[in-house]
């Protein structure tokens, strides 16, 4: 027994890493891809096989998505995975799984350096291993997990006795190429890291700030100079500036006729400064307990069903950590708390949308505070916590059917069969595929079939482009087309239920016989979702 304890004790980190790997490898093809992830995955394949992205552009620096520009690092990391491990779920996901494990190791070492307590470092690692938020995001190609690992690498580099400027600037540049969120948080990370060590001279601090700021400023400058760069920032990172709900609300409330109520009071109480209050509380909602421990995302797109960013039971050590932070005035724990606060502030600017990524990137710091809290608990309770969180993480990873079902719309795995058949039909006929079947169907077609990207693209910086032509497959917006003619050839139509009724009515008129669907495809809940028609009716736009 003592020998076993000794072996385990000496290899605890290895065991933790192994556990992290197992939890992330179980059901490797879960979560099923969303449109954005399918786009990154298929893009990675095209970068390796064709040297182009999905729009036909040769090795671009800025990529396109249906809602924003995408910075390059995530896509090229995915491409690297495809190159090494081939074009399948393993190839696409493995780099991120490995990044997820690296995060666990980095959290361990950061904790060990700062707290100088191996036990506390293990607590940090184990909480990170089992964190539902980190596990989920480790299994999909996304920028947030890359952002976290680079952020932690930067912090670790800044904590080294000898500051290596080359590595730091490399980490900064890579960070800035991962996500626009990094542009808001890179310099704060450097500044906050100064609180974690007392030995930096003023000159060294200034050097580091400059090292972080200059690439940051350059990156923003370059971005603003690309077409739609400013628009991208306003729409996706400063959407509070575009939001009219507060202004309209103020106008509406002020417009209510109130006898005897001084106008001046309304001007004082109801004015645009309310935007500050709204964005402040919007920011606070990122830190609310139900997102952290209850349900990170009810739709199932960004988290396990009824799981927060952290395991439920971690609420206790986190609260204890915060209490001891106040009691002991622990500077390091306070710095982690400030990290969590400052790094989530960009979320306030994205009002009224909730950007789940903001919540994910603060998890490592909450983990460190929770580990600190765990170190204050009695060992019996700590053991219960560890068993609970590991058990919960394994259960989350094993039993995924409810998660697959709940993400019926945002992660439509049922679309795989449909796009494959559409692709097969497209080899012999024109196929019309409705864009109401799934949000942005093109990435699913690229990912699940062997459809090839266009040869070239005229647009160097495509912004929010939805691809509509993939070989003989045309993705149609049924609101903008009419079925008003009869053609010579037979075409295939994949439509949703509402569209199918309109289609049958029009097709019957033009073909002079009843048009009925050839086939119905069901979704995760076995609800009829997609109707296939074969008809010579043509489209007018």
């Amino acid at each position, binding site marked *: 027994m003592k020998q076993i304890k000794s072996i385990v004790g000496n290899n605890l980190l290895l065991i933790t890493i192994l556990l992290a790997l197992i939890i992330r490898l179980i059901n490797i093809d879960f979560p099923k891809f969303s449109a954005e992830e399918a786009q990154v995955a298929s893009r990675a394949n095209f970068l390796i096989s064709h040297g182009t992205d999905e729009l036909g552009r040769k090795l671009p620096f800025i990529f396109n998505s249906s809602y924003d520009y995408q910075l390059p690092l995530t896509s090229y990391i995915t491409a690297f995975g495809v190159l090494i491990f081939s074009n399948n779920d393993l190839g696409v996901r493995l780099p991120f799984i490995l990044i997820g494990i690296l995060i666990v190791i980095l959290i361990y070492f950061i904790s060990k350096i700062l707290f100088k307590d191996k036990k506390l470092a293990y607590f940090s690692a184990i909480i990170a291993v089992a964190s539902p938020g980190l596990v989920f995001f480790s299994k999909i190609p996304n920028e947030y997990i890359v952002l976290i690992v680079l952020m932690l690498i930067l912090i670790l580099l800044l904590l080294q006795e000898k500051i290596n400027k080359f590595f730091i600037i490399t980490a900064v540049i890579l960070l800035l190429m991962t996500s626009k969120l990094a542009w808001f948080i890179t310099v704060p990370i450097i500044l906050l890291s100064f609180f974690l060590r007392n030995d930096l001279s003023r000159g060294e601090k200034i050097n580091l700030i400059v090292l972080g700021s200059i690439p940051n400023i350059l990156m923003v400058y370059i971005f603003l100079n690309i077409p739609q760069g400013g628009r991208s920032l306003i729409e996706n990172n400063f959407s509070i500036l575009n939001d009219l709900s507060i202004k309209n*609300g103020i106008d*509406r409330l002020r417009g209510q006729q109130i006898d005897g109520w001084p106008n001046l009071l309304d001007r004082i109480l109801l004015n645009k400064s309310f935007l500050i209050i709204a964005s402040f509380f919007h920011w606070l909602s990122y830190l609310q307990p139900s997102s952290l421990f209850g349900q990170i995302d009810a739709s199932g797109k960004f988290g396990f069903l009824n799981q927060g960013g952290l395991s439920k039971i971690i609420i206790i050590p986190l609260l204890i950590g915060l209490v001891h932070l*106040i009691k002991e005035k622990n500077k390091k724990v306070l710095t982690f708390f400030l990290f969590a606060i400052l790094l989530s502030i960009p979320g306030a600017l994205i009002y009224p949308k909730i950007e789940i990524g903001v919540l994910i990137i603060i998890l490592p710091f909450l983990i460190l505070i929770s580990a600190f809290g765990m170190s204050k608990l009695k060992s019996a309770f700590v053991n219960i916590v560890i068993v609970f969180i590991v058990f919960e993480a394994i259960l989350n990873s094993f039993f995924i059917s409810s998660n697959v079902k709940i993400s019926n719309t945002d992660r439509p795995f049922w679309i795989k069969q449909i796009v494959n058949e559409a692709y097969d039909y497209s080899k012999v006929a024109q196929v019309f595929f409705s864009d109401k079947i799934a949000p942005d169907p093109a990435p699913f077609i690229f990912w699940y079939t062997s459809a090839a990207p266009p040869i070239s693209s005229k647009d160097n910086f495509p912004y929010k482009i939805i691809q509509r032509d993939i070989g003989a497959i045309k993705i149609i917006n049924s609101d903008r087309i009419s079925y008003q003619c009869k053609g010579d050839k037979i075409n295939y139509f994949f439509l949703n239920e509402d569209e199918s009724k309109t289609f049958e009515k029009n097709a019957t008129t033009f073909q002079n016989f009843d048009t009925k669907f050839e086939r119905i495809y069901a979704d995760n809940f076995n609800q009829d979702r997609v109707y296939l028609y074969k008809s010579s009716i043509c489209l007018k736009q």
Partner: protein
Amino acid sequence: MLETMNKQILILLLIIIFGSFLRFYRLDNIPVQLNHDEISQLYDLKSIVGTGKDIYGNSYPLAFPSTGDYKPGHYIYISMIPYLLFGDQEVTIRIAAAFFGILTILGTFLFVKILTKNWHVALLASFLIAITPSEIFYSRKSFESIIGVCLNLFGLFYLIKGLTLRGLNAFIYIGILIMTLAMYVYTSYVITVPLTLLLIFFIYWKKANLNRNSFFRIVTLWLICIFPLIFITFTNNDLRFRASSVFLTQDPNLGKLIGLTHNPLKAYFDLVFVKYLNQFNPVFLFVNGLSLTNQTMLDSGPLMIVQFPLIIMSFIFLFLYKEFLFQGKFLFFLILIAMIPSSITFDDFSPHRSVFAFTLFSIISAFGLYWLIHVIITSELNKLFQSVLLGIIMLILTLNLTYFIRIYAFSYPYEKSQYIEYPFKEVSQYIWSQYGNFDNIIFDPKFGTIQPFVGVGAQYYIAYYGNLEPIFVQSEYLDLKDRQMSIGKIKIRQIYWPNDKNLKNILIIGSKWTIPINELDKAKIIHEFALYDGQPALYAIKL
């Protein structure tokens, strides 16, 4: 010491007077009309006082069938006192809640004083209770939970007083009695009071120097106190129906979750856990939890916005200085208990079940305010600057209160009048003014602006504003199936226009959802009833 005590009493009196003003000023028309709960309670009250029966003919029922929700009767019976004192008027039904709302201020002072032995904190807590939005809001409607809050505070006062005296004494018995009364008043306290008693005895047992004998006596007293409640609950189907109709099992999300996971136990646990944590959402607590407007962030939470930084400061103060560490922990656990009821019901958010939790949050925020004032007063700043800073604090509190009054008194009726069945009072008065002119009158309470919903309690509005004698209503009122009721020649039912348009000498009152207003001959529309903001709600059609 006498001087200090006089000062305390004077300040407390001023706070109570101010709190009374906030609760009683224009109580008759802020909110703008009695909602369906209030009108049904008022008319049932009139019926009980006059005949000893409700409108359905039930003698002194424990649960009033009312509008199908089987309200516990306590509030109605308590309201008999203001009814007998002030007579039959609309405001009568709101008086009991307002009164207990004022008593809550006193209860807060006593509770916090006995807990902290610091009258400054106690006065600040009472002041914050006097001006907290949830306290004012729930004191101005006929809502029994505020009585429960008051009883809890007094109960806790007596309990702590008794337990700090060491040994079993009368105060402990009084405290248990009062807290148990709260369980009779509102269902939420059936869950929170036993847990609170467990907590308090767990904390104070050793300090109170109580032994096993004392334990048995206390438990025996408590069991005797709750025995009638247990008996009523098990023997009264209506009360059980009421409880089950709001329980978590009515939440469609639960069914969906069980369908997904095929694990009912996990589904229950997960849903309750998420709902419980949702109650602590800062947006809900400080920005829009009371849902007084349709403008998302331009609304009011149960707590004022300024109470957020005060609560943060409180937690820092409590753990940093340890002077009130024990009290802070106690209040924290009380809040955790007080939030339980709203997490096991079908609503996503049910602030009316968490009213006591908001009271406790306000009390906690008093520690932050105390610390802030203490830092200013004991700082080395000159007196003028100290006064300016204190003035700024007062100004911020005043602005927050003014903002709440603006939203509650003025925007709430504009934005949400349809949800308090406005203009059913006007409809009822109109119906009676036209009663003699028609053979029959049909009123369909299905209305709404963006989407239709069926207004509740139409029969009560008609009975009350028609000054109908309860004995008449008891004999004449028919409650038929499928949303059909009648009082005399007034029929409250669903309009089916293809048939109803052929009726003769009839007055039909309905909305755009039940009558094709645009296709109708305009001459037939003899009256239009508008919502508070002027949007058309209902039409009177003469056939």
